[in-house]
């Protein structure tokens, strides 16, 4: 994976552009969602790697185990919708973390912008496809809502709650460490790890 950033660094934007195939933002085909997500997740992962030259050794001391909820990624039979929801939740929370304005000096502005743009793209794709699915499954959704109001915690929501708790731990870590440079570096590495797991997760989407 260390070779990837070099390769992508060389692949400057004209060459990269020429290699990509297109979709207009409003005409996305959701049956190819896994292809998009795979590509965009990997791009974001590489962007996160490139943002910082290397992890400062002195920050290792402050490192903390955030306990990424890997069990959601090892479900044997998750519904496609659950996978998309998990993906959406993850993308949203990662976006939320990276739009906070407290790291002006830590990383180069343009790298940060690219990460923000990349995450926004991920969100746009997911939103369009989740909306499409919702329109199709109006009845199912109402049933799910009833379940939710009665029991308080229906099964599909549980994985999203785990994800939220995970990101909440990251958020609180940042606040407690007062958004220090080390704290941001640790968070950057953690979210990159999270993207990596989700990138593997896209394989599940393809199988459906």
């Amino acid at each position, binding site marked *: 994976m260390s070779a990837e950033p070099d390769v992508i660094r060389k692949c400057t*934007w*004209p*060459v*990269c*552009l*020429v*290699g*990509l*195939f*297109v*979709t*207009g*933002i409003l*005409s996305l*085909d959701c*049956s*190819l969602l896994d*292809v998009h997500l795979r*590509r965009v997740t990997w791009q974001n992962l590489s962007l996160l790697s490139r943002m910082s030259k290397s992890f400062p050794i002195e920050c290792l001391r402050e490192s903390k185990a955030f306990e990424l909820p890997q069990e959601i990624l090892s479900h044997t039979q998750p519904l496609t919708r659950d996978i998309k*929801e998990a993906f*959406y*939740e993850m993308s*949203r*929370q990662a*976006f*939320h973390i990276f*739009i906070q304005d407290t790291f002006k000096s830590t990383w180069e502005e*343009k790298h940060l*912008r*690219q990460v*923000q*743009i*990349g*995450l*926004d*793209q991920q*969100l*746009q794709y997911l*939103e369009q496809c*989740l909306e499409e699915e919702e329109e199709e499954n109006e009845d199912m*959704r109402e049933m799910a*809502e009833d379940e*939710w109001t009665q029991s*308080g*915690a229906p099964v599909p*929501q549980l994985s*999203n*709650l785990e994800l*939220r*708790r995970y*990101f*909440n731990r990251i*958020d*609180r870590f940042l606040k407690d460490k007062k958004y220090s440079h080390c704290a941001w570096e640790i968070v950057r590495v953690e979210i990159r790890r999270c993207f990596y797991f989700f990138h593997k997760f896209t394989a599940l989407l393809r199988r459906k």
Partner: protein
Amino acid sequence: MLALLGATTLMLVAGAPWVLPAASGGTNLKSPENGRVCIIDDNFILKWNSNSESVRNVTFSAEYKIPGMDNWKKLPGCQHITSTECNFSSVKLKNVYEKIELRIRAEKGNNASQWHEVKPFIPFQKAQIGPLDVHLEAEDKAIIIHISPPGTKDSIMWAMDHSSFIYSLVIWKNSPSPEERTETVYSRDKIYKLSPETTYCLKVKAELRSPRRVGLYSPVYCINTTEKHKVPAPENIEIDAENQVYVLKWDYAYENTTFRAQWSHEFLKRIPGSHSDKWKQIPNCEDVKTTHCVIPQNVFPEGIHRIRVQASNGNNTSFWSEEKIFNTEMKTILFPPVISMKSVNDDSLHVSIGAPKESENKSVNQLYPLIYEVIFRENTSNAERKVVEKRTDFTFPNLKPLTVYCVKARALTENDKWNKSSVFSDTVCEKTKPGNTSKTWLIAGICTALFSVIVAVYVVKVLLRCINYVFFPSSKPPSTVDEYFSEPPVRNLLLSTSEERTERCSVIENANTLTVIEETNPIDEDHKKYNSQTSQDSGNYSNEDENSGSKISEELLQQETV
């Protein structure tokens, strides 16, 4: 007797309720029931039903427990409450995604009832979206809307969601025919396509996509659009990618106007708060007099962006046009595939389609599934057959033998909605093989040819041998002669001396051809001594021989060392 018994029982039964409380002194205070929590944004309300008949002097207190706490703690804001609800927002939960347990009991004086436990809950899952704060600003054909997200800036409940809210807005004209329009907007957005000088009313509700949650509609807000602006805004903004540039075009009906265009990142829309300062001027599109401008591709980073254009005719500037969203990915193009064809047998041709290659010989990442439109025709006719194939290897059967067919293909994206296609590849033509009867003749002919070639080669070989024997005899002497004329070359001597094989030979006869082989020793002195010793020992050496012998040995030594 019976009547007396009945009356006593009746009195006892009737008297019991009065007697018992007085006797127990309040230990049977009934615990409250039906405890429930209502959470709106950061307001936590606990409600319950009191169970005691006399509500005088009965107060209620509550306690809470969260994971990590061993003991119950007093719930702030819910101690000694006389009513049946209390507000415990001041509890300042660190984590709204953890389960909370609550319990309430009734108290009167020193007595307390049993604890009534409220069903444990996760605050985030119970939270409802509270009221919204809406500000409106009117233009002539649009309304700018500012919605502040639910909760305050320091909201604990929505701390991780303030960029996730979307707002569903219903807007209608107050005129006789109220046509409603529903739109989904971000927290700072614009509603377009309105008429000037009209009163519009709207209401908004906030939504969270996932988990799905919908708030209540805000109250209705009304505003008048301004009169038609002197300088209208540009319309129908379009952007296209061509070669290495983007071409931005718009419509404008009037002359003598200059325009400027700005762009902004799309993701900023998700972040609440005003971002009016985040628009950047597009180079080449400042003070242009035409209704288009050409933008080099390196102006925009990869991603999704928005563009707006403004017109000005000297003194007055128009309002900003509608914002056009565009994705930089639109500019990529599909390359034509590489097609090849070969004839399989006399009536079919096998076609294989390869991945497209860019002109600089870099292979293209194929990220989206492609289908191929293949045009197939006979070389001599113009009748084309169009086939759409998903596979990259396929065969055209049932063709005429010994005919030339030509094929070309182009790549299409699988989904018609996208409507992207490449240009056609080069045309490749191939001839089908000849038919069955002619084929067998061909095979027979080939076999015969092969056979005759083999025979000819053999015949030629035999002939050559004869000729060689007759005309070019070998010049080697017979083997018996070899024995007499063979001489070991001088080199053997050298080799044997280097292997340190020593042989001491004594000369029996004084013949010139015989040479002395002695042990080599780089030191000449020893050698000479040795030589003289042997000569003395043997006594058969003449002086002449001794000298010649040593000389030859010395020569040998020199040669060897050289």
